[in-house]
């Protein structure tokens, strides 16, 4: 049975974990990203489940450490972080708020993932600076695992695109 006290405690732990930001994209929290999956208690020890974005994303170990620190600051003793692989993370889990924050930050948010299988599918990504759809792909791979490099042909600015995954 979940008492009010338990759910208050869980909410407090969730809020603390959810305040951790992605070290590469500091405007997004791990809750915005959909990386934060679960917060549970094993006795009085809190255990947070996160899911990796990309298999080799070096930010994940940093995020796990930041979560532990955030929980300790919030008064939780010896918190644990575990990684869950299933279901596999997808950019479809990114919150609307997260997408807006990304755009404001100058990164084009991911499109729906149902088109990612097309081997040479034509893509169009709106420029986060001027909103123009007249853009072109410069490189499928960008400065981090999660981004590709694009250029706007209207305002001529290069920009990052958060790849759909």
């Amino acid at each position, binding site marked *: 049975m979940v008492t009010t006290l338990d759910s208050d405690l869980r909410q407090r732990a969730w809020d603390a974990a959810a305040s951790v930001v992605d070290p590469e994209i500091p405007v997004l929290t791990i809750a915005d990203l959909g990386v934060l999956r679960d917060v549970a208690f094993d006795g009085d020890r809190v255990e947070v489940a996160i899911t*990796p974005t*990309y298999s*080799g994303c070096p930010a994940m170990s940093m995020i796990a450490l930041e979560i532990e620190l955030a929980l300790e600051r919030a008064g939780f003793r010896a918190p644990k972080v575990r990684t869950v692989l*299933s279901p596999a993370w997808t950019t479809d889990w990114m919150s609307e708020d997260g997408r807006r924050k990304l755009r404001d930050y100058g990164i084009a948010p991911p499109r729906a993932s149902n088109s*990612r299988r097309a081997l*040479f599918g034509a893509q169009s990504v709106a420029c986060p600076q001027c909103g123009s759809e007249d853009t072109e792909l410069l*490189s*499928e*791979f960008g400065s981090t*695992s999660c981004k590709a490099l694009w250029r706007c042909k209207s305002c001529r600015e290069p920009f990052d695109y958060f790849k759909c995954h």
Partner: protein
Amino acid sequence: MTVANIQVSETPLVLYTLRRADDALILGHRLSEWCGHAPMLEEDMALSNIALDLIGQARELYGYAAKAEGGDNDEDKLAYLRDVRQYRNLLLVEQPNGDFAQTLVRQFFYSAFADLYWRAMMNSRDTTLAAIAAKSEKESAYHLRHSSEWIIRLGDGTEESHARAQGAIDQLWAFTGEMFAVDDSERGLIDAGIAIDPATLRDRWMKTVASVVTEATLALPQNNWMQQGGRFGRHSEHLGHLLSELQSMQRTFPGQTW
């Protein structure tokens, strides 16, 4: 080399998982050798990104192999403390980078296979392998698109790039057959619904490869003699050199951490 090799109890599941882990680690390491050397900055980032994905996949698989073995080994020991003859990767992935065309053709042959393989593995009865596959197939789809575009650009590019791409295909073709080979140890896992029978993927792999190669105005070799051995620890002379670099820190300073 001052540190003894570990022993691994290769039950069918451990061996199966190790083979996939070794493929990902060795190819990831090969790609990492391009870091700082690629023909342009975008490709430097692309190859390093793909390397990261592969090494991430390797870590998950090694972790699971160690768990399935149930002994003292862990992902680091499996990667750093096995010698050449204990490695189980495909001969294809250990082939040297050569020029840019050789690297991309090697990547293309492997990614076209891995993409089908991981997608099929998502239905494995082994839930951990299915979860690793669900993660990996998203990455391999992206890798396949990258290398496919390069094969077309190189093949349908200049006389020089065409010749190099064709040369790479001719040279690496004999290493593609091993991807579809199955031994008795794996057959049992296939029958149990845990492992994937790669023979069922061959037609689709050939279709993808042939369509990209044709679009690139290149040709597939008619010679179908295939080289094998990596799955059983019989490697080319190249793997030992790769491992001596990959393992040097742990062999020199055992147990060293960041």
